[in-house]
């Protein structure tokens, strides 16, 4: 049975913890708003990019001059996975969710006899994947120093990927990140970025994009400029979604922690009060029985 003093100490320490989690929750809420705004501000660009890309793909018509980034190498042997996670923990199952998703994917690829290479963006994903697949991780990108996520960061990652592709070190590149649905739900998503999905092509027709365009310079040339840029944009979007998702997950995790701490304080206070009462009763009995003995 802990003494009164022990209980008092424990209540104090749980209270301190509660204050910390509460503060973290509020910080996460503020950051979440900012991250959401950033994600929203970036949306017009990626939407336009998609439309333009669809349009131009149609113009080129998948002819011989389509760049390799779009058509792929024609093989499907070596897969590069870019796994984007958060830099910090304390955000519930956010990181492990992405890592688990990526791991399932890796397992499937390995079972099919493919070769897998991994680039980790974010420290947490690296820590988790290192346990099982250390030999496959070829690179990691550290964004811990980055205060506000800029396009430059995404561009650097995309450039790395494109460079590797140029060297012929992989055939298919898939991006893993967490899609931000709402504060309480983030969905791990895999998105193939090389070869670029041609799924966007029918969208152009619906868009009424059959106007006769003039291209300056040639469509093929624009396309070869556009595709790498599109990869950067996809990475950027993934990073932004991740940032928003991380903050959302952190907010709900810290909310839970605060509530748990509250419950714990209640329970401890009850025990503390009972024990104090018991001690008072005991002292009273001693006094009374002492008086009666006289």
């Amino acid at each position, binding site marked *: 049975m802990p003494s009164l003093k022990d209980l008092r100490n424990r209540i104090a320490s749980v209270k301190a913890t509660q204050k910390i989690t509460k503060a973290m929750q509020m910080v996460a809420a503020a950051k979440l708003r900012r991250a959401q705004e950033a994600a929203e501000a970036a949306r*017009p*660009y990626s939407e336009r990019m998609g439309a*333009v890309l669809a349009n131009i793909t149609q113009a080129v018509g998948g002819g011989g001059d389509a760049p390799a980034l779009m058509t792929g190498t024609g093989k499907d042997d070596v897969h590069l996975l870019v796994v984007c996670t958060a830099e910090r923990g304390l955000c519930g199952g956010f990181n492990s969710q992405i890592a688990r998703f990526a791991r399932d994917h890796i397992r499937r690829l390995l079972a099919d006899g493919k070769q897998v290479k991994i680039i980790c963006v974010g420290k947490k994903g690296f820590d988790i994947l290192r346990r099982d697949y250390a030999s496959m991780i070829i690179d990691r990108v550290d964004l811990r120093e980055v205060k506000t996520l800029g396009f430059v960061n995404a561009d650097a990652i995309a450039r790395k990927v494109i460079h590797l592709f140029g060297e012929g070190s992989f055939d298919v590149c898939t991006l893993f990140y967490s899609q931000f649905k709402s504060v309480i739900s983030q969905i791990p998503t895999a998105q193939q970025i090389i070869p670029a999905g041609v799924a966007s092509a029918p969208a152009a027709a619906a868009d009424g994009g059959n*106007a006769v365009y003039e291209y*300056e*310079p040639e469509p093929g040339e*624009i396309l070869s400029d556009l595709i790498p840029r599109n990869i*950067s944009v996809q990475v950027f979007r993934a990073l932004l979604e991740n940032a928003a998702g991380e903050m959302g997950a952190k907010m709900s995790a810290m909310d839970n922690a605060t509530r748990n701490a509250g419950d714990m304080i209640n329970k401890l206070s009850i025990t503390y009060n009972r024990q104090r009462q018991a001690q008072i009763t005991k002292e009273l009995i001693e006094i009374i029985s002492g008086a009666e003995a006289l």
Partner: protein
Amino acid sequence: MAEAFQFELVSPERLLVSEQVESVVIPGAEGEMTVMAHHAPVMTTIKPGVVTVKTAAGKEERYVVFGGFADIVPAGCTLLAESAVAVGDIDRTDLARRIQEAREDAADAKDDEARSKAEQFLSQLTTLEGAILPA
């Protein structure tokens, strides 16, 4: 007064301009061009340079863009810039950094094609610097 059309300047980070304008001067990869309402559909890449926007209200705004491309249709014009800032907000050190990077790129280029590309980019950047930083 010329007819107005919708112009949008978008960078990956945000939407900079979305308004009715009279004319826009775009630094196209194959020469500057002025876009006005009912322009024939054109798609062009752009080089680093200054975009001059004349709004329907008669104001003139200038933005520095670093590469990207423009999508022009009769109803409007969308400029997707890799990075864009208003001329008034340009950061000299940032520009100097970009030039430095371009210089390194040119020095590191593996083959002739990459080198000529990098050098072209570098010369575009220095021209840009000369154009906007005399003040």
